[in-house]
């Protein structure tokens, strides 16, 4: 059974091309261009992973993440962002994001993360606020966000 993914981004070009690449990797992908459209889908259908753009009109990624978690705390949400900041990364992880990845994203890293979220979902490990272990995901993060996450890790250690 293929992994069921809900992809949310207001950039239609990005949405279409990333969906095609994930489908080549045998994933069952649904695309929507706003979080508002996604809420109804999430309430009616199960998804193994939700890939969510951090900056979107109407409702931004963090607000959408909070709403997804309110609908179903076990939803596995991976945030994609053009420019991540430490503050937003920390906030996303505290709100229960399964991961935060910076665009342009490495498809291998994203695929690995999606598969990992499915395993977590099946094994019943939710990613509700504060349960995430930043350290465990840091080694597979790509590019500059890896450095960013090291910063987040230090912040967590301090607190």
């Amino acid at each position, binding site marked *: 059974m293929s992994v069921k993914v809900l992809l949310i981004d207001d*950039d239609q*070009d*990005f949405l279409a*091309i*990333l969906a*095609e*690449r994930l489908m*080549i990797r045998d994933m069952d992908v649904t695309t929507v261009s706003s979080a508002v459209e996604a809420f109804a889908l999430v309430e009616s259908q199960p998804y193994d992973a939700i890939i969510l753009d951090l*900056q*979107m*009109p*109407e409702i*931004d990624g963090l607000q959408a993440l909070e709403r997804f978690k309110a609908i179903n705390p076990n939803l596995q949400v991976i945030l994609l962002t*053009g*420019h991540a900041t430490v503050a937003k990364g920390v906030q996303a992880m505290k709100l229960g994001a399964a991961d935060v990845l910076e*665009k*342009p*994203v490495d*498809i291998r890293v994203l695929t690995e993360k999606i598969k990992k979220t499915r395993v977590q979902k099946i094994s019943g490990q939710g990613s509700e606020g504060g349960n995430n272990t930043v350290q465990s995901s840091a080694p597979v993060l790509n590019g500059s966000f890896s450095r960013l996450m090291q910063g987040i890790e230090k912040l967590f250690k301090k607190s």
Partner: protein
Amino acid sequence: MIRFQGTANTLGLLFCGTMTASMSHEIKNALAIVNENAGLLADLIALAEKGRPLNPERLKTLAADISRQVQRADSIVSRLNRFAHSAGQPVTTTDTREIFEFTAALAARMAAMKGVTITVAGDNTVQVQARPFIVENLLWLCLKHLFAVSTGNQTVQLGAENADSHVVIGLQFAEGTPVEEISKLVTQEGQPLIIALQAEVSTDAQRSLIRLTLPKKFEE
């Protein structure tokens, strides 16, 4: 005056920071799509090596998509370059329409995030003598405070008209917009810009209008 100039420069730096952050984000988005297109090409080649035939039409579409994203990124870089150069531009006589269109382009992405559309009114030529960067900065403050209170789906129209020795720039908001509140915040935050431009800010709450009155001829 020196103190106000200093604060105007600080506001200018904040303006630069906000705009470059926004434009670099836009460039990143275009690069992300180029990256996915390149990745898809690699995917299709890998599939072809496993026996799935390559569809030339799909390759043509991919090449066109990459080209479109490169053009998109190029226009953002051109805007960024123009913006960077405008920071040091001295007092000059400029068509207000040019200033409006450039400010609208700078703020377009942030406006879209808040469900706001920025339009430029009319096709009349109104020229103003000022530092365009400071006018853009003051217009940005008006837009920024509008975005903060916007509930989405609204349009703001920028326009100008001649009035004797002055030029009146108008920001026409949607009915019900708290223009007096926006104007108050702009006047507080943008005081050094208002002084630097020798401008006055007024409102017409009934018409949901903020007016920026600038001298047609700038006196040093």
